[in-house]
């Protein structure tokens, strides 16, 4: 078959709702875009372990400690599933990790913001995981089989991540004056970064249309972002929390909550590596990788000596 016929069949398969599997024909650009998306997603999970991981030792109850550790561990697991999905497209995990450590790969900017108090653990769970789940629920229908399966597994597991966060925010919002102040402060700091998680404005998102045509995404960044805002605003307000946006208002005609324009300068600055914690996050990953080098060498040496 010539390329044109292959392409037609590929589009027809996607239209029929079939999954594209490793080994199947796919446009080179589809492969590239997916490797880019999936590896960024994997890196986000791995880097995402750090802001919360830093609070495991300080969790205020035995249960919270166990729950937070299990959540951070799950994030490692989700990174693992996603690297697997990207590997089926021909990328190796070593290459992907090297790219991350070299500062050449992107990951979700939200993890470049610092976690400053314990209440951030609740807010991250509700806002950041909540936003991630919206995106991932969409991607569970992705046309590429391995990515879609990873998403199904991740969404199932992550529901608890969001709910444990919600549980905390509800508690602190109705808790002691100190807890209330802490959780309001956390909302003030995490609101904007969580809206930025959905990516650039549709007009600055050159890949969106193609990804939708390929059945990778079904909604645009702005559509998902609006859904998230509409869901979150009433819930947060119900708890007596104040959303840090003086222009926030409800639009009767569209039924949408309208927010101020996102600070896109900040968005691009953080994406390009100049956020509050970009250097710190990468330094932590590099250090873990370097400190682990002798361990990985020993495992390989043992396998070569004794297992073959």
């Amino acid at each position, binding site marked *: 078959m010539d390329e044109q016929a292959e392409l037609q069949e590929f589009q027809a398969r996607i239209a029929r709702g079939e999954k594209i599997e490793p080994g199947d024909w796919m446009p080179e650009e589809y492969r590239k875009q997916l490797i880019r998306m999936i590896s960024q997603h994997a890196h986000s999970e*791995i880097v995402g372990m750090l802001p919360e991981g830093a609070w495991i*030792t300080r969790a205020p109850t*035995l249960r919270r400690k166990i729950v937070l550790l299990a959540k951070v561990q799950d994030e490692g697991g989700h*990174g693992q599933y996603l690297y697997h999905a990207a590997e089926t497209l021909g990328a190796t995990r070593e290459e992907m990790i090297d790219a991350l450590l070299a500062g050449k790969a992107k990951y979700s900017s939200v993890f470049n913001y610092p976690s400053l108090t314990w209440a951030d653990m609740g807010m991250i769970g509700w806002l950041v995981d909540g936003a991630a789940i919206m995106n991932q629920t969409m991607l569970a229908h992705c046309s590429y089989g391995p990515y879609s399966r990873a998403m199904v597994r991740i969404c199932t597991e992550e529901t608890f991540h969001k709910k444990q966060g919600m549980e905390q925010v509800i508690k602190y919002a109705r808790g002691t004056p100190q807890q209330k102040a802490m959780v309001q402060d956390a909302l003030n700091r995490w609101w904007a970064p969580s809206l930025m998680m959905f990516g650039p404005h549709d007009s600055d998102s050159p890949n969106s249309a193609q990804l939708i045509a390929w059945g990778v995404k079904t909604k645009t960044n702005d559509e998902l972002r609006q859904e998230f805002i509409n869901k979150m605003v009433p819930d947060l307000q119900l708890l007596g929390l104040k959303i840090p946006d003086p222009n926030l208002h409800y639009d009767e005609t569209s039924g949408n909550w309208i927010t101020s324009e996102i600070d896109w300068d900040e968005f691009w600055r953080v994406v390009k590596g100049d956020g509050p914690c970009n250097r710190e996050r990468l330094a932590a990953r590099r250090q*873990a990788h370097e400190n*682990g080098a002798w361990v990985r060498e*020993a*495992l390989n040496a*043992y396998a070569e000596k004794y297992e073959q």
Partner: protein
Amino acid sequence: MPNDSLAQKILTLADDSFILGHRNSEWAGHAPILEEDIAFANLALDELGHAHLWYELYQELTGVEPDRVVFFRDANEWRNTQFVELPKGDWAFSMTRQYLFDLYENVLLEKLVNSTNERVRGIATKIRAEEIYHLRHTSNWVKRLGLGTDESHARMQNALNELWASALQLFVPLENETELIDANIFPDLKTLRDEWQDKTVSHLSASGLIVPRVLEPRAISRAQHTEHLAELLNDMSSVARLEKFGVEW
């Protein structure tokens, strides 16, 4: 029933598991390879879970809630061994410590599942299933690092040299422990130590490692701690102590 001795003993089991789980949780996000980051977090989660079960029994015996015991005690009131409170060190140190502890728990739990105390027996049975897997995992790691490269071997030997005398503290009986032994609630730690030593020496030798010729534990009293415990507790209780005990988090 020697209830007070039992409570004291249960507290030592809870504190050891808790502090070790706490230390190991520090590896989350920083382990040498992704799969092991997940695996080691499982070990930490299990230890914290085991501590929780023991703290619940402690609460039944004394009325003191687990979160009060964990977050509102000062260092001199903790009853863990110095062995588990030492900083996590490098991967060889953490892995060797976990292995030595897993083997201790395995020989102990093998006896505790036959304890005359029903609650002890029940908890021990639950914990033992997980500890069998822990030992499989950490034994395999010890073997691979002991026999891997010159560097991994040297690091493992160093870790063992540093840890051995501290590990022996696990086998120092409490003051009134004979009451528990006589009532067949707890096994005699002297026999346990022999069994543990035979098994560790055999596996460590097979892994190319030499057990230090040290017979005396580094510390005797569980009320005495290194400076590391106070540091750990300061950090650990910093959020919990923002409010008085009883405020929900």
